[in-house]
């Protein structure tokens, strides 16, 4: 059962993503901010992190950097951005192999991206399953 951590400060969006991914059969862990997400991932590593960029306290990009270096996110990261802060950010994230979905995102697209990340051979540096065949 793949474990997905969703970090999003808007409670409605968080609920929506959680509901949608749960319906796809994933175990979803919800975090309202970056710090909570970090603690949750530390307590039990997750396969995929879905996270917002702008969050109070620990923002999305700092969170990603922290989690990727520790291997607490095993398979990959999906970042949700606002349409207007696209351009540069998107390119920068894509260069690091991070999936980017602009809000309002398509739920179908989100589950496709998550499924693709889970199906791919793990490439996370320091990822616990990265020794796969």
């Amino acid at each position, binding site marked *: *059962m793949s*474990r997905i951590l969703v970090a999003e400060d808007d409670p409605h969006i968080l609920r*929506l993503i959680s*509901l949608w991914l*749960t319906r796809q059969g994933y*175990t979803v862990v919800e975090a309202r901010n970056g710090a909570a997400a970090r603690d949750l991932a530390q307590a039990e590593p997750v396969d995929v992190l879905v996270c917002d960029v702008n969050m109070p306290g620990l923002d999305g990009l700092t969170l990603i950097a922290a989690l990727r270096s520790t291997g607490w996110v095993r398979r990959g990261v999906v970042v949700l951005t606002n349409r207007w802060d696209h351009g540069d950010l998107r390119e920068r994230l894509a260069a690091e192999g991070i999936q980017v979905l602009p809000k*309002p*995102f*398509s739920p179908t*697209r989100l589950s496709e991206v998550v499924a693709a990340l889970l199906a791919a051979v793990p490439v996370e540096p320091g990822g616990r399953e990265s020794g796969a065949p």
Partner: protein
Amino acid sequence: MSSSSAPTHTGRLFQDLLRGLSGLSGPETRSLGLVGPGAQPPQPPEHCLRLCLGGSADAIPKRGCAFLAAATRAEVRVDALHDGRCPVGCAVAARPVPVNGQPAVLLTVSGALPGPREPGADLLGQLDRAQALVQRVDELLAENAGFANEVLQNYEQLNLIFDLTREIAQLTESRAIERVLMQRLARLLVGQEAGVCSAEGEWRPAVAGESARVAPAALAALVAQARAQRQVQVGAAGDAAVIAGPLVGLDGRVDVAYVLRAPGAAPFNAGDMLLMESLLTFGGQILSNSTLHERLRQMSLEVVRALVAAIDKKDHYTSGHSERGGFLTRLTAQELGGSAAEQQTMEWAGLLHDVGKIGVPEEILCKPGKLTPEEFEIIKQHPRMGWEILRPIASFELVLDGVLYHHEYPDGTGYPEGLRGDEIPLVARIIHVVDTFDALTSTRSYRAAYSIERALEVIRAEMGTRIDREAAEAFFRALARYQREQPNDFAARFGARRNAGAEGAP
């Protein structure tokens, strides 16, 4: 982590609910739980399982506890409750409640182990209250799931609409906008076929399919109805569902957009109609804007042509000079890889470069023979005069550069500002080459026209001093390509000059 039958939000909620209900328990109740089919998350109370079964809910029927077996099959009847007693002596009571559309049983087990007991009145009363609560929660959950579906669907649509706006924002041509709009609409409405029937009755399919051909009359009738009532209409063409709606353009023009589903697919509903209406309203506005934009562009073009005609009327010697200037400047800009918009602006600059001659007295402009230094000073005013004429036109920056600086030379000896080399805008350097070429290949009162070859030689000789090298080389390539690729056009335009050039003299 419990697997495949995910501990859903619903499951968690029921666990919370049961925990809350346990608080309602009377003194003699030990446990309260839900028994559902297939070991769904609402489990029989652990206490009960341990006591009666020592296993999972699946094992209930095998363990011979008839009461629990009936309970898991949701067969417990209210009138049987008084008989409810577990073999080990606990009083049990149950009420059937549907959870998530599936049968389940709410179950209580009384605590007093020693000695057989019947369920007491308070136990049953508690069970009734719990049953009502579970039912209410189930209703709320069903409602919640419905809303969630709606929100998810809206989110999906919102995303498509955002993509559509972004995609359309990059388009200017109305047919292209219409096509993208219809393709998106077909996707949003799960259509198999989509298109537009124009106000003139022209059918323009955007997403091809076969259905429309099956029952063209039915489709045409619905389209006509949508046009007449200016409202979204739904119906059927053969066994395919159709939706049609007005795409209102400028001057009350009504094109009609239609989408057909695959034969046998569900008919369009109220939500589809709303979506169709809002997208067509949006699309109609975008299309109107693009038509307006096209009209404005057309108008600027006409104004430019009028100005050009005014210049050519004034200076008979150079009749056609502006038109050729525009054409050759565009050709050169194309050679240099300019975008379509840049080429267009360059052409305008080439067309309008001499517009300032309108302000030069005719007797000087058309004077046969050599000009006096004073007269030449007046002629030299024309770039600035042209600039002043065109300056009020917004978005003409590049054109203004071309007009003001087309007599600047790379060596700094030109006018009006004596700019040097790269200080001269590229558009002006190109116009200068083109201007020179056209002057040389035109007949003047004091000399016959040069041949093309001779004119090019003159230009080549002045490269680096009076003529910019980059612009001149691009011009040579452009002219050669034009001659190679469109020999007939080239001959029509320049053929006479080539012949005239045979006896050309300075």
